[in-house]
């Protein structure tokens, strides 16, 4: 047994961390956050050149042929850095095609998604919080019509993996019958929009089992994103406690604050093991896959949100300002928590999946 990252995986995380530190440091994240698009084409291009567009794309289609655990590790590191842009949804769409696409669909899309030549996203949510495959109503067919909400990078995407009634998936290319209404999301580095389909040409993607698998992968990736986010929030609060002085000493001297910070660390540190195992189970332990994905999404996104609140408090007045960077990760946590359903939804699923 060796429940730990390999040297290659550590190198992957270090490489990404270094790239983010150079190309998109907190000052740049801030510019994107305050900008109009929530996207940095040059940074995105750099990520694609590193090969991050095709981590889980098979090698014969131009990807790295890695597993969901590797994608999750990359996601954690990017979230820690506050990386803007469509990485999550793009990766999830590529994974969906790699797992369930026909040869023709794989050949047509995967090489372009791996290289970053094309950008993909996922369209799941319907009105009134209907996120889960079991709840989708949009009728499948060769032409599809209806609305999907909270679609990441909707304005930028060339291709959408769209959830359809009966728990299916469809591929819809941007263009004919497809329009997008972008809106101001709370997480300003990962913008979203409503996708409106009006007799848009569609292809069926995979079978009913695929949508459920993709949902599990989404849970794992959101959990990994939330973990990286929470780590960043903790580190920001701890660093601030070492700098800020009151009563003639740095505030980290005060036991009440020290204990709050210790409790924050205790809340989040062990959760690394949970998202690792959920990712590992996705790849290798089918009987645990759905359940641990649900558990990880519920648990870690909840922890990250609370750490966001705690980190704001630990900063005092400055923490409550627009100027303070804590809010960037706070809002990342808000998205990770709500996207694909709030923690209670996934706890209820985890309970059902346990056979309780």
């Amino acid at each position, binding site marked *: 047994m*060796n*429940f*730990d990252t390999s040297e290659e995986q550590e190198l992957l995380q270090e490489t990404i961390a270094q790239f983010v530190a150079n190309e998109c440091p907190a000052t740049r994240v801030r510019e994107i956050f305050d900008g109009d698009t929530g996207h940095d084409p040059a940074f995105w291009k750099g990520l694609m050149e590193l090969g991050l567009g095709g981590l889980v794309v098979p090698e014969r289609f131009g990807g790295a042929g890695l597993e969901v655990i590797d994608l999750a590790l990359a996601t954690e590191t990017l979230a820690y850095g506050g990386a803007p842009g469509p990485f999550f949804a793009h990766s999830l769409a590529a994974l969906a095609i790699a797992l369930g696409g026909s040869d023709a669909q794989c050949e047509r899309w995967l090489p372009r998604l791996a290289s970053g030549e094309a950008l993909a996203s996922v369209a799941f949510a319907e009105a009134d919080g209907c996120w889960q495959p079991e709840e989708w109503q949009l009728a499948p067919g060769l032409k599809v019509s209806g609305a999907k909400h909270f679609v990441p990078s909707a304005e930028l995407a060339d291709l959408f993996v769209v959830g359809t009634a009966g728990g299916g998936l469809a591929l819809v290319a941007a263009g004919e019958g497809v329009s997008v209404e972008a809106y101001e999301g709370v997480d300003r580095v990962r913008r979203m929009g409503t996708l409106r389909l009006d007799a848009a040409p569609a292809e069926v993607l995979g079978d009913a089992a695929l949508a459920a698998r993709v949902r599990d992968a989404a849970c794992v990736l959101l959990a990994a994103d939330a973990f990286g986010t929470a780590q960043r929030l903790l580190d920001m609060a701890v660093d601030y406690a070492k700098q800020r002085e009151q009563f003639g000493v740095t505030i980290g001297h005060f036991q009440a604050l020290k204990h709050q910070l210790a409790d924050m*660390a205790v809340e989040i540190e062990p959760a690394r093991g*949970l998202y*690792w195992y959920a990712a*590992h189970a996705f790849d*290798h332990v089918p009987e645990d896959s759905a359940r641990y994905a649900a558990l990880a999404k519920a*648990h870690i996104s909840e922890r990250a949100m609370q750490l966001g609140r705690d980190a704001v408090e630990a900063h005092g007045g400055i923490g409550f300002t627009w100027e303070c960077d804590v809010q960037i990760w706070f809002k990342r946590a808000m998205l990770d928590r709500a996207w694909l359903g709030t923690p209670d939804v996934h706890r209820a699923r985890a309970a059902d999946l346990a056979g309780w």
Partner: protein
Amino acid sequence: MDFSYGPEYDDFRGELKGFLAEHWPAGGGGEGESWEDMVERAARFRAQAVEQGYLLRWVPRQYGGSEQEPDAVKAAIIREEFHRTRAPDEPRGIGLMMLVPTLLERGEEWQKEKFVPATVAGDYKWCQGYSEPGSGSDLASLRTRGELVGDEWVINGQKIWTTNAIDADYMFCLCRTEPDVPKHAGISYLLVPMKQPGVEVRPLKQMNGGQEFNEIFLTDARTPADWIVGKRGEGWLVSRTTLKHERAGIGNALGPVNAFQGVVQLAKKTLRAGRPAIEDPEVRQRLAAIEGYVRSHEYSSHRQTSRAFRGKDLGRVSTMSKLISTNIGSEIAKLSLDLLGDEGMIDPLAQGESAESLGASRSWLTQYMFSLGIAIAGGTANIQRNVIGERGLGLPRDYYAQRSSGK
């Protein structure tokens, strides 16, 4: 990452089942077996299980262990199969869990040879004499004196909250042997025989009704001059090694994992509005919320074990295990009390009519309270937060602690 029950593990389980069927057959000694015969049979079985590498996997062979590579999957299989067949397990007491690792890290060769094999075999029982009436969290202020007189230490003072002292053969004990130096530097770590005239043990009754911990009065108690672990004045350092293992023991994820399985069963058995409580959406939410913490701790521990074995840095999470475990323990305790409902008003030690319905609830009620004892023993939650904040997160040291240590 290599963490599946692959074919290698199926083979391992198969071999273990064969071993157990042969050496610990169901019904074992038959009807007429005496207690002594059973004890002897268990000891023989343990020795064989060690020989085969199933027990004492982390203890070197030369000191009576089986010296195996740490493997959480194998360990889980061993636990399951031993549990299923009710085969005798390791004697997981204070000696095995706390003193043995300390001696292995810091003892002299003759000390390891004399004490480790007998302790791992369950022949020597130990207690931990650290806390005193005036010295709990501020342990280094302890005042029990040890004076070298000829070739013996002569010990005078008082220890308190000493778990299992009544049955112990020996105590590992912190004494002030160098009274004239700053408090941390004046302490030695002595091994003291308990069965002698200078040692008086008085049981203390706990709030849960149990009597595990005790007071110890030491009046000219004696122990040989070389029964000291580390040098004179190094006792504080040595005690940190023991404490690390105590906290790791309490922090072990196995406790919470088992307790969680228990509370799921409890939710299946108890009723809410006439239906099994586990069907209630609120109970399901709470169980799943607790499970998030339990599985985090479980897999985080597997990660730490894997890293420790390969000599990699464990990072700040290694300071947190005890608090993580006791936080989970208290959440499970609170849920169990809600599930028990009216039974939560009955004394778990009750006799007679009021107790008739209690049955399995007794242990939950006792555990409801004992979860607090565990949160205090081995350093309170606040002391853990200090350690996490200072050593884990690198925050400044506590002003009063620093001032009182003369630094």
